[in-house]
């Protein structure tokens, strides 16, 4: 076993051992501990846990790569996935915490006094969460197979086992404390390589400042100017102005991600774990700080990785790298199939240009930008080992949060709330553990046999959260008169139009060939891509709800009184069951 592999095993299994120890120490003994960690988490701890809960395999592995290739267009992810927390902190979290229940569908049930509303919310929650988990499970499998040369299937199995131990044993309490540890692992693993690379390229150790600095090669040229120059020379669009699909599309995309973020139940749930309304507001602030730490480094990682890659292939304009002299990391990633070279003009050199016919780098997978980054920059082996542990921490922490959201909505909302109201606390706890085990098995199965639509489903998860859950919650708090009938009509039409739009362009249930309008851009409504449609769905939801409200009349007086009550933080009680 070589040194790198040894370090990787130590980092990965060391971090697993830590998670297990925490899970044993923080095991849950009541439904309150299982669902909301007893409601006793401090805002700082909760902020860290939210950070890990939120930042998934996609944030850790894929986002910087997306930005590297989209340039300015990648801003939609940066603004969208952070701006949602402003909405959460001001429009949802404090009031939902004040109301003091265990789950998001339960809030919707109380506010809209309707079992139908509760079931609609459960269904949205399960679809959104399950599609998300598939991505995390795939991330776990990929991290194992890339870094430890373990079979993808076995790696995924190990990941399932690890999550099972600490999520089923510890519930929200165990998940919270492991997420805190996972946040530390992942932020360390993300920023250390970035600091090294920023130092190498610009002499500035802070990546956020390095991105705006001059290059350390003595030329006095700003890094971003150099990058703009290099990419345009090769025929790509200018890095700092390349706007993905136009301004309207970027606008709708950003807005959809923001309100989708604010409406994702596994994130909202974390706000039920703190002791007060003030603590709920504060934890949103801390969460955003911890998230911003990674999100402001990501654009530096993306831009610097792109520049490093281009500089490797073309050290000076017109002088391309001989394929035979390619560096070791290039060879390593060729083996995985994520980098592919094809000598089209037969000169033995590598041409990497925008023109498809002349381009010889036929595949550059965007995930490489984070995974290979430490190797490209010649960083020590222990840093590379950290990246593996960090990627796994990001995937496992998000998977655990999603699993809890699913199991609580099934055992608490469907079973206890609707089917078996007399379920005892002990049996409810047992049933949540069984449901969670089953969810892990389903998620694992879907990770092993990813359905054809897996790639398209993230759009659906955000679309559903944005077009149904967020508007229903927001109107429930800010529109005192909003009635159950109106809210349900709004939710259903919001989901309906979003699903219709996604399916008509991407295929019914994402099956290729069933898309009746095709994926062609000319058919897009105002040029808005299906991924960006959640914002339009939300708008439809609001409009329909208000129209129906006018026709069918306001909510009953006792509901309006309840709304008045959760708007005021006074007399905040401990979280309780009904």
């Amino acid at each position, binding site marked *: 076993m070589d040194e790198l592999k040894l370090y990787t095993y130590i980092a990965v299994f060391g971090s697993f051992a830590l998670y297990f120890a925490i899970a044993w120490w923080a095991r849950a003994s009541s439904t309150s501990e299982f669902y909301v960690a007893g409601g006793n988490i401090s805002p700082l701890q909760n902020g860290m846990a939210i950070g890990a809960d939120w930042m998934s395999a996609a944030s850790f592995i894929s986002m910087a790569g997306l*930005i590297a290739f989209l340039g*300015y267009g*990648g*801003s939609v992810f*940066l*603004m969208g996935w*952070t*701006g949602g*927390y*402003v909405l959460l*902190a*001001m*429009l949802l979290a*404090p009031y939902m915490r004040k109301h003091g229940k265990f789950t998001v569908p339960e809030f919707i049930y109380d506010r809209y006094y309707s079992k139908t509303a509760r079931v609609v919310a459960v269904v949205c929650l399960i679809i959104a969460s399950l599609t998300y988990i598939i991505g995390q499970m795939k991330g776990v499998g990929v991290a194992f197979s890339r870094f430890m040369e373990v079979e993808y299937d076995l790696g995924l199995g190990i990941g399932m086992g690890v999550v099972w131990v600490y999520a089923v044993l510890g519930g929200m309490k165990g998940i919270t404390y492991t997420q805190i540890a996972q946040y530390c692992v992942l932020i360390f693993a993300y920023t250390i390589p970035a600091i090294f690379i920023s130092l190498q390229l610009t002499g500035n150790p802070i990546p*956020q*400042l390095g*991105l*705006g*600095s*001059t290059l350390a090669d003595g030329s006095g040229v*700003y*890094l*971003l*100017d150099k990058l703009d120059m290099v990419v345009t020379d090769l025929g790509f669009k200018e890095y*700092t*102005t390349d*706007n993905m699909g136009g*301004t309207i599309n*970027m*606008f709708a995309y*950003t*807005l959809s991600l923001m309100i989708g973020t604010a409406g994702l139940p596994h994130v909202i749930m974390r706000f039920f774990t703190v002791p007060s*309304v*003030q603590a709920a*507001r*504060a934890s*949103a*602030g801390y969460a*955003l*700080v911890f998230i*911003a730490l990674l*999100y*402001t480094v990501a*654009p530096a990682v993306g831009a610097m990785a792109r520049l490093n890659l281009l500089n490797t292939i073309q050290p000076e304009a017109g002088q391309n790298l001989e394929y035979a002299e390619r560096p070791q990391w290039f060879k390593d990633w060729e083996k995985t199939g994520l980098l592919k070279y094809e000598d089209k003009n037969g000169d033995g050199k590598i041409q990497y240009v925008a023109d498809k016919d002349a381009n010889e780098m036929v595949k550059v997978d965007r995930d490489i930008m984070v995974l290979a980054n430490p190797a490209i920059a010649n960083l020590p082996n222990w840093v590379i080992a950290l990246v593996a542990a960090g990627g796994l921490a990001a995937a496992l922490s998000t998977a655990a949060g999603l699993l809890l959201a699913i199991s609580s909505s099934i055992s608490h909302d469907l079973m206890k709330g609707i089917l078996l109201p007399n379920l005892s606390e002990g049996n409810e706890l047992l049933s949540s553990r069984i449901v969670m085990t089953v969810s892990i098995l389903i998620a694992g199965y879907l990770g092993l046999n990813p359905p054809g639509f897996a790639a398209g489903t993230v759009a659906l998860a955000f679309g559903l959260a944005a077009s149904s859950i967020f508007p229903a919650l927001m109107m429930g708090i800010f529109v005192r008169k909003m009635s159950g009938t109106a809210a349900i009509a709004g939710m259903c039409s919001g989901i309906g139009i979003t699903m219709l739009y996604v399916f008509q362009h991407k295929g019914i249930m994402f099956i290729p060939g069933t898309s009746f309008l095709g994926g062609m851009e000319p058919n897009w409504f105002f040029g808005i891509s299906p991924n960006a449609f959640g914002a339009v769905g939300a708008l439809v939801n609001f409009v329909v709800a208000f129209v129906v409200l006018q026709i069918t009349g306001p909510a009953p007086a006792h509901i309006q009184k309840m709304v*008045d009550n959760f*708007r*005021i*933080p*006074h*007399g905040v009680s401990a979280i309780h069951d009904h």
Partner: protein
Amino acid sequence: MEKKTTYWQENLRLIFICLTIWFVVSFGFGLLLVEQLNAYRLGGYKLGFWFAQQGSIYAFVGLVFWYSAKMNKLDKKYCEKGS
């Protein structure tokens, strides 16, 4: 009862101010006005690009803490007395 109404009005006013800033720094500076702002620079960053990839995020963090601090004051002012 009246106290509760004023509390809520003040909260709404704060939210309105915060969300206006939220909109201006991200959708305004980062997207709609990006070309105009790109004429100015912040070190190596074009200003509009900086807002889209850095500045808006810092502003979000500031906003949440500011709102939180303001609301804590409001909570004390309106809700401590009474029971």
